[in-house]
């Protein structure tokens, strides 16, 4: 055995086509192509259908409030205080979207950015291309952002137009705050998505860890004074909330607990830092990790 190879001619190791055609795309260029490939898959996934239904919840709630408001001429009162439509919308954005829906979207999509491809055994096609592995993560993260923004914004807009006119608020006056809310939601989606992308690439059982973080750790540490709350995304997001809440209400009492609120600039810088550090770390994990597919 082990005879000499039949064809001992040296291999031409040079590319056969001109180098211009063989250029390796940059990380961002590769990420853009992964984004193109992934967005459609993500938008039409079962996950998006399920989360789309979840996002219908606030719309149904807003529609119900709107119908009720046509019957109750005195408007809505929270703990005896008259609540304007804009304030109710602000509460919905903070309590429903920022504190619940955005983390849920972040957990379910963020932890699955690479895991879905591994589970579907399609990761091989992406990892055997002349692109850095971290660009796969980055492209899929950008697709997540686009997908979740496309899911969230229509829901928020519908809620805005249904709720704000109740209680005497003016849509035109409240509209600039809607744009601010959009921006805040996008920052929230970006931050939670990056954090959970890291969880998804580094930890086992990322979904459980993500849910515990979003709905166990964050609410718990925000309730208490101290530095631990700085290890949450919600702490920085709350500084971006522009809505004035009804005073002496249950909600305002809850908000009083968040008495230590950073400035907008500090929050934005910290959130940018969280996004950059977690994405970098997630990308590094993807570069170094071996993905063994079940046969």
């Amino acid at each position, binding site marked *: *055995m*082990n*005879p000499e*190879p*039949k*064809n*001992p*001619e*040296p*291999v*031409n*190791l040079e*590319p*056969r*086509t001109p180098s211009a*055609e*063989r*250029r*390796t*795309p940059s990380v961002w*260029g*590769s990420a853009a*192509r*992964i984004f*193109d*490939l992934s967005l*459609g*898959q993500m938008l*039409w996934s079962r996950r998006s259908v399920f989360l789309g239904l979840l996002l219908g919840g606030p719309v149904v709630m807003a529609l119900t409030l709107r119908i009720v408001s046509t019957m109750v001429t005195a408007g809505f009162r929270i703990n005896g205080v008259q609540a304007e439509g804009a304030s109710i919308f602000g509460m919905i954005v903070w309590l429903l979207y920022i504190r619940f829906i955005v983390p849920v979207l972040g957990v379910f999509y963020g932890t699955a950015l690479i895991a879905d491809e591994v589970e*579907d*055994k*399609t990761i*091989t*096609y*992406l*990892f*055997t*291309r*002349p*692109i*850095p*592995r971290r660009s796969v993560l980055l492209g899929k993260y950008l697709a997540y952002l686009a997908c979740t923004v496309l899911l969230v914004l229509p829901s928020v807009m519908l809620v805005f137009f249904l709720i704000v006119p109740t209680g005497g608020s003016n849509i035109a006056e409240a509209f600039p705050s809607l744009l601010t809310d959009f921006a805040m939601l996008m920052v929230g989606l970006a931050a939670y998505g990056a954090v959970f992308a890291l969880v998804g690439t580094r930890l086992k059982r990322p979904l459980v860890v993500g849910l515990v973080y979003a709905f166990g750790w964050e609410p718990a540490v925000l309730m208490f004074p101290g530095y631990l709350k700085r290890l949450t995304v919600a702490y920085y997001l709350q500084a971006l909330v522009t809505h004035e809440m009804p005073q002496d209400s249950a909600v305002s009492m809850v908000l009083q607990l968040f008495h230590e609120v950073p400035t907008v600039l500090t929050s934005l810088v910290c959130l940018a830092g969280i996004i950059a550090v977690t994405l970098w770390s997630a990308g590094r994990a993807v*570069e170094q990790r*071996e*993905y*063994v*597919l079940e*046969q």
Partner: protein
Amino acid sequence: MSIIAAEHLSKWYGQVIGLNDVSVAVPPGITGLLGPNGAGKSTFMKLITGQLKPSKGSIAVLGAPIWGHPALFHRIGFCPEQDSFYERMTGREWVTALARLNGVTDREATAMAARAIEMVELTDAANKKIGAYSKGMRQRIKMAQALAHDPELLILDEPLSGMDPIARRRTIRMIKDWGRAGKSVLVSSHILHEIESMTANILLINQGRILAEGNVHQIRELIDEHPHTVHIKADHIRTLAREFLADDDVLSLRLEEGAVVVQTARPDAFYARLTELAASGEHGAIHEVTSPDDNLQAVFQYLVKS
């Protein structure tokens, strides 16, 4: 110079050894990687495509380490074993999207995909969703994505798996054409005659080790020296058994329910005789001929013993 060079390459998954101290040099041209299921073929394939990092030793593909060097994939095309796709995409969309990852423009990617799809003779079905493809079509579109960027090394993991005989013949012809066109191809299979039909140069792998490398005919001779068992289901097994007993090459014979089991030293001659008997109908119909020794595992056990 070799296209793939492994030096004391080992890979283990926790306590399980996938590949054990393999040193091998794969020459240019078509090479078959032959081994039974679980032999370590897939681990070897994953190591040479940079999906896994060696636990020990080194692996170089086209002269450079593959792990952490994705730029090498400009020159490598890989067709994995798994039957996994973006099912909602059409074949053309999928191959084009993957071709774009080679850093070419959209127009170039479209042209590359069209050429590759034509090469695998799937142009008519290119605009159908992959989810609607037959198994053979899925295998071919998988090959199209591997060769779209005109790589100089093609790595094909069980490419004939699940194909019908016609698609199989077409694919074998295609692989041989690539070899003739100057490409190097490493193709894995667990079926000896599949590999034999593509190339004479093979690597035999079993239990995580390369058992032998070289010309398939030498290995075939070695296998042919091994007593070969044939299981024949027929109408008249007793008269058939009498016929076989007259043959000098039959080493032993036993009767089972509805079948005669023969051990022969010259399987080629025996099969020729059996075909004659079946064609003559002299001893009634011969329903089924199987050979447990065609199971590669048995051959490997024999090779290891020898």
